[in-house]
């Protein structure tokens, strides 16, 4: 129920922003749409509400994860641009395994998305039971677990673990 209410508020807020400046007509239509969305999708939105309202987690997310993410995204673009422009295309691709200790859906989703948008890597599949991510890597350095973790996982995993997983955050 809590999740449905939050879904409603979220959907309604997005609607209001989309049809800025809101007037009565828009608000009524938006409330109707948000109700339908919340009724259908609500139960999947948040499974652990206490996580979302923890100010320390939100702070870490906004001021630690997002700046690093943007920086990595910029680096990724110059990396791809270099490989594309270079006449001999210095690529060395392959699919490797990455062990992860993250367990929650949110954590894994953010890890997979972050890996896709960082230099040279693209998540192909996730095996949730064994905690393995299959990653297409444009420039394979080595396929043993330690190398993949050092080169790919270490940038984001400890951070996401702190934000989404640990019971107590400091």
């Amino acid at each position, binding site marked *: 129920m809590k999740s449905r209410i939050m879904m409603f508020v979220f959907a309604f807020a997005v609607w209001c922003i989309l049809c*800025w400046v809101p007037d009565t007509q828009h608000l009524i239509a938006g409330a109707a749409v948000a109700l339908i969305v919340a009724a259908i999708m609500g139960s999947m939105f948040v499974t652990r509400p206490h996580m979302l309202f923890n100010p320390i987690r939100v702070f870490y997310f906004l001021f630690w994860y997002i700046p690093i993410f943007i920086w990595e995204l910029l680096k990724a673009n110059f990396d*791809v641009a270099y490989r594309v422009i270079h006449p001999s295309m210095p690529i060395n691709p392959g699919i490797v395994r990455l062990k992860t200790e993250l367990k929650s859906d949110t954590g894994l989703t953010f890890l997979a998305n972050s890996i896709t*948008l960082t230099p040279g890597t*693209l998540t192909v599949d996730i095996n949730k039971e064994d905690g393995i991510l299959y990653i297409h890597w444009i420039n394979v350095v080595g396929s043993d677990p330690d190398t993949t973790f050092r080169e790919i996982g270490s940038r984001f995993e400890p951070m996401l673990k702190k934000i989404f997983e640990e019971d107590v955050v400091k």
Partner: protein
Amino acid sequence: MIDIIGMVFIGTGLAFDVLGCLGLVRLPDVYNRLQAATKCVTLGTCSILFGTFLMAGGFTPTGFKALIAIVFLVLASPVAAHAISRGAHRAGIKLWDKSIVDSYAEDKEGEA
């Protein structure tokens, strides 16, 4: 002044989009092409949208829509790339000849 900054953002975005498309043509297989397509096109399009946000005068109706589009684009494009690459691999599309390892295929051999 703000218009010039917006123009710079739009120009950078266009340059990255062009590079992304060039990668789509030059790189050898579907997985490598997806790499170029997701990264360059995500940042390029986000940059264009941010330039639009600046040139539309900040938090005006158009500006708000541009910001929302950035958020959805950043969330959706890696998911789409993930779905396409997984679907391609399941459909049996081979990696490029000069690829080094394919741990995914090794692990999937037992399954159908």
